């Protein structure tokens, strides 16, 4: 019962993502399908969360209205899918695919099992021993979900200034999505946040691997997966029910959608709208996502101008904005009119913030903290940055670079976002200096999947190091023998 809105929302998101047809014609088909479904799952959860907040704010949230809202979302998504279904749209010719060697398939399969199995087992253990999640899950996200799921006006407690120790101003995507399922079920079932966390975690893993598989190669996807899952902190966050993984999901999904737009000279309006909506949903997930959404939209406009001049800039940017603005408007109303001003970063005078950013001691503390946190994310010598360095040294950089413009876009977005993180940490009077209040471990988990996508797109694929797969055409000697056996002359039915 608790999962009915969940299933409706995810199904709607999958239909919406399929409507955008961002991976149409790409191979392997399984990876292309997985990519669309993974993007769609998070998209559906995000839109459903927005709808639930609108229901709460309008005083209409109840079991019937939650069901109706999600059915309405599904109906709209089905209608869009029907109107834009593959038969109705011009089919893109599939790109010629090189034959995947059995060595690569074995390597990819082993990498999948070796990485995913321990990660899955570890996270199941984590979920069973910590069913309420890690600290931030029960102290912030699930706590606020309980208020949002409460009867009558209890939802306002999630935004109460009395809740000043648990960030009542934080956006509500994760809490809202969990809450609507709790409200619908009439109980605080811990399986809802656990399954939601697993869904976003699986989607992040699937998007990184399948995006690299369809755009580059299976071997490169397997290598990226191995590096991603060598990060122990990231693995802990996967099963911890934190909002950092959903945030990382929206970063990765929006950048991946832009990458998939490379496959067509004239990408559909729906793809641009999808990218915009995904970026905006990052803003509904966490404060950092607001910075991301703004950076993303500005950089997207610049990228579209670079790709196709002013015409493409106006056409695609307007559709990206059309996808983003409804969610950004909700975030704006929430931040400016509903949530109490509880963020010490924004409630200080600008001069004080600037002085903190420019203080040499604080900058040095930040650099040291980043170094410590980034070099202590594994177990023993199995550090993710070391594994990454080995992968980069082993594979080498791709020359000439494919998807150059999108890769540059990805690096600029992530670079500016990282700069924004650093500036925010420096300016925040409460963050530096306390190990437990420093957000570095979660910050890395948010950026890690997108960083790996941008980096692995610049690397050579393992397949390039293997001898070329034998041609499927039969050797001339065999052809002649078979032809002679059938009683024809070798030139009677030329093959190949």
């Amino acid at each position, binding site marked *: 019962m608790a999962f009915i809105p969940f299933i409706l929302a995810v199904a709607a998101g999958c239909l919406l993502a399929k409507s955008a047809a961002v991976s149409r014609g790409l191979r392997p088909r399984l990876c292309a399908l997985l990519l669309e479904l993974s993007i769609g799952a998070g998209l559906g959860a995000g839109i459903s969360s927005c709808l639930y907040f609108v229901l709460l704010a309008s005083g209409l949230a109840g079991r019937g209205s939650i069901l109706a809202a999600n059915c309405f979302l599904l109906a709209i998504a089905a209608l869009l899918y029907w109107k834009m279904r593959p038969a109705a749209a011009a089919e893109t010719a599939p790109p010629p695919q090189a034959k995947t060697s059995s060595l690569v398939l074995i390597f990819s399969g082993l990498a999948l099992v070796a990485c995913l199995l321990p990660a899955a087992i*570890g996270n199941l253990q*984590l979920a069973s021993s910590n069913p309420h999640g890690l600290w931030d899950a029960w102290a912030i996200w*699930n*706590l606020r979900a309980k208020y949002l*799921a409460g009867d009558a006006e209890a939802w306002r407690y999630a935004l109460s200034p009395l809740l000043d120790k*648990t960030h009542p101003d934080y956006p509500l995507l994760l809490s809202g999505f969990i809450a609507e399922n709790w409200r619908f079920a009439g109980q605080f079932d811990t399986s809802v946040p656990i399954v939601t966390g697993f869904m976003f975690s699986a989607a992040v893993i699937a998007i990184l691997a399948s995006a690299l598989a369809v755009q580059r190669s299976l071997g490169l996807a397997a290598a990226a997966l191995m590096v991603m899952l060598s990060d122990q902190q990231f693995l802990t966050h996967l099963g911890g029910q934190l909002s950092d993984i959903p945030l990382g999901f929206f970063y990765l999904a929006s950048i991946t959608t832009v990458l998939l737009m490379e496959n067509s000279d004239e990408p559909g309006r729906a793809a641009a709208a999808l990218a915009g909506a995904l970026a905006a949903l990052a803003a509904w997930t966490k404060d950092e996502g607001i910075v991301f959404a703004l950076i993303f939209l500005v950089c997207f406009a610049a990228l579209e101008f670079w790709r196709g001049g002013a015409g493409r800039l106006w056409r695609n940017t307007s559709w990206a904005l059309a996808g983003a603005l409804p969610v950004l408007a909700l975030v704006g109303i929430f931040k400016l009119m509903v949530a109490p001003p509880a963020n010490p970063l924004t409630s200080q005078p600008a001069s004080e913030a600037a002085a903190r950013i420019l203080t040499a001691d604080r900058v040095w503390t930040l650099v040291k903290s980043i170094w410590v946190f980034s070099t202590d994310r594994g177990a023993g010598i199995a550090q993710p940055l070391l594994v990454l360095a080995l992968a980069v040294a082993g594979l080498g950089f791709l020359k000439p670079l494919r998807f150059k413009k999108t890769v540059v876009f990805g690096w600029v977005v992530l670079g500016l976002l990282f700069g924004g993180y650093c500036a925010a940490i420096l300016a925040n009077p409460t963050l530096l200096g306390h190990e437990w209040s420093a957000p570095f471990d979660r910050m890395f988990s948010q950026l890690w999947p997108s960083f790996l996508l941008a980096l692995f797109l610049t690397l050579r694929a393992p397949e390039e190091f293997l001898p070329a797969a034998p041609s499927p055409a039969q050797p001339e000697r065999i052809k002649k023998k078979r032809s002679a056996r059938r009683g024809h002359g070798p030139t009677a039915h030329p093959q190949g």
Partner: protein
Amino acid sequence: MNARENPDPWAIARQVERFAQLRAELPPNSIVEYYTDLPYTRDSGGIAAFFGACYALAPHLLVYQPRATKPELVVGSFLKRPDLAQLEQEQGLVLVKNYGRGLMLFRRKSN
């Protein structure tokens, strides 16, 4: 991922179970004050205990040392047996119900 070595390090599942009866008996959507003999520090476990109690009692709102209006109902969470007479005299807290395991509900005396 050290779930096996350190399952539920903040004892949240235990807190949820400990507060369950109190949570059910509070009036709907109550705002209640939190009173404890644990110092509000990370090392003492006081911060974890407070946030754990917040989570366990939600959707009731639990507040710690509110600056403005003091709620009428007060939830006491104690490590040591409290001196009830002293609490009533000094803090104006009258015991409503003792739930055991250091958990009590008080009503604040109106001045």
